[in-house]
């Protein structure tokens, strides 16, 4: 574990080009422990590219990245994980045929040793129950196969698994995508609880900013590879964001019509 510095993430003048295409231009941001950032923007605005730079999947063309106050050059996703960055992707990487507690520990299973690697189910079951209880994930049983859970429960399990790795920075890619209001509420509760516990910084990538607004401390809007809007949620509103986005859509439509 890295030392518990207050500042978890700092990006300074990050740019990223793929050949001739500039995906990100001069992005700067910072995030403290216990803070939740909502990263909004249209498809292709650069949100995903920025996320992939934080996970270590992409390397920035220029600019500096600091984790826990130290400058880092992430070489790979595995390296990013070592440095305390966990990402929950939209496909969740859960295996339907396997029960909840074994999914929680997939690839990090405690074993009873031996060359066969006999699984320690008792330890996994106990740790999984405790951990899920601690962050407020409600499921019928940790013995349930993941295929039996709702979308919200699955998302919560995936988040819980990442949190269990004691990460400093948690990236959530569209955690409420394709979910109804009730299911979204479940996962937002989990995020809210993590925010109150204050052990990590969280970035939520979202289309539906109205849903995530309440759990965010800060909102950034990415457009054309730049951060065009950056305010604490206390100083803005869903209405202001709506106006911004509606405006963006109108301009996009206008430019399509001109062409």
């Amino acid at each position, binding site marked *: 574990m890295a030392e518990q510095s207050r500042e978890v993430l700092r990006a300074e003048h990050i740019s990223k080009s793929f050949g001739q295409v500039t995906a990100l231009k001069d992005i700067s941001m910072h995030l403290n422990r216990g803070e939740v950032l909502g990263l909004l923007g249209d498809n292709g605005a650069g949100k995903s590219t920025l996320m992939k730079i934080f996970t270590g999947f992409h390397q920035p063309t220029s600019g500096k990245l600091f984790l826990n106050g130290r400058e880092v050059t992430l070489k790979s996703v595995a390296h990013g994980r070592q440095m305390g960055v966990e990402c929950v992707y939209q496909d969740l990487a859960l295996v339907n*045929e396997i029960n909840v507690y074994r999914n929680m520990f997939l690839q990090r299973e405690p074993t009873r040793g031996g060359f066969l690697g006999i*699984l320690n189910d008792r330890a996994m079951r106990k740790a999984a129950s405790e951990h899920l209880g601690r962050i407020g994930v409600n499921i019928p049983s940790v013995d349930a196969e993941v295929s039996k859970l709702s979308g919200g429960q699955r998302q919560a399990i995936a988040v819980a698994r990442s949190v269990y790795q004691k990460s400093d920075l948690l990236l959530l890619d569209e955690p409420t995508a394709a979910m109804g209001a009730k299911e979204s509420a479940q996962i937002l509760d989990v995020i809210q609880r993590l925010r109150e516990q204050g052990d990590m910084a969280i970035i939520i990538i979202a289309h539906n900013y109205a849903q995530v607004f309440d759990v965010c401390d800060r909102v950034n809007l990415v457009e054309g590879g730049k951060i065009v809007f950056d305010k604490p949620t206390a100083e803005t509103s869903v209405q202001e964001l709506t106006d911004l986005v509606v405006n963006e859509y109108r301009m996009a439509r206008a430019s399509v019509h001109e062409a």
Partner: protein
Amino acid sequence: MNDQTSAGTASGQTRTGDKPARRPLSGAGIFFLRQREASILIAGILLVIYFQISSSAFLSGPNLGNLVQYSATTAIIAAGEVFVLVCGELDLSVGMVYALTPFVMFFAVSAGLPVWLAVILGLLAAAVVGLINGAVTTLLKVPSFVTTLGMLFLINGFTLTISGGFPVQPQAGAVFTGIFGANALALMAWAVVIALLFQFVLKKTRWGLHTVATGGNPHGAAEVGIKTKTIKTGNFVLCSVLGGLAGILDAFRIGSIDPLSGGTEIMFAAIASAVIGGTLLAGGVGTILGALLGALVLGILKDGFTLLGVSAYTFDMILGGAILVTMVINVRLTLLKERGGL
């Protein structure tokens, strides 16, 4: 509902060291699988009763010996095939490895090596075939259906070439021959011990869990850091080695090493056993004990029809029909599973 877990198929679960009270029913899927093992068991028992009524010779000692001879090696190959199927692949070449391995053993003995070393060399040759199957499938990204179909012909041609197309006799002491398949009880012991051991590996070890994960969600498994290529290749090797072992056991049982034995027939029988026993072709779900029961049921059918004087042609039609029906059920189950409806 915690306590009523293990009634149906307690045999394997409890023997693998699982305490029923600690293993509550985890969802309808597993419950259903257990039911499938139970239902194939019941089908087997009903068939035994039917054949015993039809022909009193069915439950006689010599006939049970025949039954074991047919089922045991099929079950051993099926155990390997289940691992390959669960991780989302298919091995069509294993029946040819079954024919090749005893020849490698034979040539090693002819060259003056002790028979135990010759067996190991034979199994190593089988492992190499599995390794090639795995490497071509995972590294060159050729679908395993195609990889192992090519390997099927390649190995068959190779075996025919090195043997000249003629059978030979395996040479070993009486005790060795008895242990390695000549004795029906020893043969059954091989099949049962292998089934129990690999059921345990599949359900209770890291390798088994990662095999299920690789077949259940290949992308997700890779994302959490499971080396899915290693898992798949390892399972191809496992399947080949078990195929080779089955070939050696049958060689000692029959007292002859025939380049034309096994082949596609035993391979299809093994896959059919796996599927009848409850393994899904789509990957992610499988059971070794089910495959053992599947092999026994196939054996009972074949043996029973032979006793009743049903011709081999008719038998093939019935068997083919039974497999088709099972496959249809299998596909329906896969669809249900994908919808999360089970």
